């Protein structure tokens, strides 16, 4: 596939762009395989991403690649399990706001700890892995995320999740252990986010607690929703579209980047009610671009 050959044929800049977009795909897909069917709109992406990134900054010098990425995954998953028990008792907007606070909480707690205990803040990654290593790592993560998403929706858990999304009480009365399904999927999603954060960190050399960034949360949500969160292709399309549009706007319109981005969003929302993936569906139906079976059956 072209993506695999990319580091050979593309110049470093285009490889970097592809890497960044693949990372976004991984984030958007893993966000959507939980938040899409369950309708629990998570804004915690920044927290898990940041955790993975900061962990890499701390251990990278002492630990061979790709262990930091695994560490990031474990970190993200653990955090999600920890807060999931409380967070997933909350509904809709309450869940969203609470998860948003996670990134802020993680950041300030880390700063507090660092200033009080270690006396410094921020870490330098002095010997990062080769760029192509990072590229393939992210490519693998993106691929794994997509495979997980596909597998999940065919599985019992996937159906359970969709059931939770349409009517949680009913799902419970049907005997589904909603708590386990929700927390489990949330943690799986978070593990991917932590892994992506861990894999991206070496690119930035210096990591400080500002890496727990709410914009990562927002951006992931935008990409997934723009493409259509109930399909697997939706987040992929959304991430690619937004990534490319963003880059083009950035390079061409120095002072109107935000304006262009905002207007693009508004236009797409008003013109395409079913998201970008809706366009795909009409042209070529496939498992990737269809909503889960439960929804189709009506």
């Amino acid at each position, binding site marked *: 596939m072209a993506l695999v050959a990319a580091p050979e044929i593309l110049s470093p800049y285009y490889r970097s762009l592809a890497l960044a977009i693949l990372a976004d795909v991984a984030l958007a897909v893993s966000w959507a395989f939980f938040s899409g069917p369950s*309708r629990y*709109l998570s804004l915690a992406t920044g927290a898990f991403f940041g955790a993975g990134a900061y962990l890499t900054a701390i251990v990278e010098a002492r630990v061979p690649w790709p262990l930091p990425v695994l560490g990031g995954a474990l970190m993200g998953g653990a955090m999600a399990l920890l807060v999931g028990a*409380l967070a997933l*008792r*909350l*509904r809709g*907007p*309450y869940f*969203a*706001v*609470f998860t*948003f*606070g996670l990134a*802020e*909480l993680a950041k*300030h*707690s880390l*700063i*507090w700890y660092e*200033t009080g205990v270690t006396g410094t803040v921020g870490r330098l990654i002095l010997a990062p892995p080769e760029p192509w290593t990072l590229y393939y790592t992210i490519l693998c993560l993106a691929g794994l995320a997509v495979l997980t998403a596909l597998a999940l929706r065919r599985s019992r858990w996937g159906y359970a999740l969709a059931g939770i*999304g349409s009517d949680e009480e009913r799902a419970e009365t049907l005997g589904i252990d909603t708590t386990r399904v929700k927390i489990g999927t949330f943690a799986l999603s978070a593990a991917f986010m932590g892994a992506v954060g861990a894999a991206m960190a070496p690119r930035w050399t210096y990591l400080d607690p500002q890496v727990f960034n*709410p914009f990562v949360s*927002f951006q992931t*949500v*935008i990409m997934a*929703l*723009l493409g259509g*969160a109930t399909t697997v292709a939706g987040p992929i399309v959304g991430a690619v579209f937004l990534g490319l549009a963003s880059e083009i706007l950035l390079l061409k319109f120095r*002072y*109107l*980047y*935000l*304006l262009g*981005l*905002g*207007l*693009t*969003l*508004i236009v*797409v*929302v*008003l013109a395409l*009610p*079913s998201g970008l993936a809706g366009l795909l569906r009409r042209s070529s139906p496939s498992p990737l671009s269809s909503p889960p079976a439960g929804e189709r059956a009506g």
Partner: protein
Amino acid sequence: MSPTLVVDIVVGGLITGGIYALVALGLNLQYGLMRVLNVAHGEFLMMGAYLTYSLHTAWGVNPLLTLLITGPASFGAGLVLHRLLYARVLAGEAAEALESRSLLLSFGLLFVLQNAALLLWSADLKGYSYLAVPLHFLGSVFPANRLVAAAVALAVSLAFYVFLQQSFLGKAIRALMQDPEGAQLAGINLSRVHGLCFGIGIAMSAVTGSLISMLFELTPFIGLPYTVTALVVVILGGLGNVAGSLLGGLILGLVETASVYLAASDIRLIASYAVLSLILILKPSGLFGR
């Protein structure tokens, strides 16, 4: 704890809380009624702040008087935006698509407003000094401008609360919040009321911004932290409950101020999040939520 400390915490908390309450009220109206999560809420605050800043520094208009301009102007802008954007999304959509589409619209608005502010006022820090004089009372000292800002914020909040309880439109809004179908059957025009509420919400945000311009420096990027605070207060008090937002704002202000005085500035956000978590554990739909 010395009496001065208590005064510092209580008065300081009410000052911060009053401002939090006002910025949250507007969001609560939009989210509680229309399920529109307006992430651009803080950007309207930012615009209101810049408007007051410009009126004051260019023509010497008293910042408090500018409220008479920013209020109505932003209300009008809110009506227009609702008509142009949100009404089309809200018309006959399945609930989940509605929320995600209006969320995306709001993000779009957020970017557009930030860029507009950037073009109009540039990224340089802008600010002015107004009533930055110390007032001594109750054994401590407080700045006049913060006291005035908080007083105005509380006044507007209370006025709005009274409006909701007493006026016809207010009752219509409350009816729609409690029972959308029943209210419509009773003849209330959903779309009209939505538009008005959206406009009021924007106006409250812009007015808060005008007040804030008296206290802090402005850049086009000050909006988001206020949106976040507004969201926290709305959730804390209970979505859709106006009194909840008022009380929630004051509580949050007190908690934050207390944490800064008793511990350290660093843990202000940790403390507020901890309190939020505590309340949500005990009551997952907020203090007064249904």
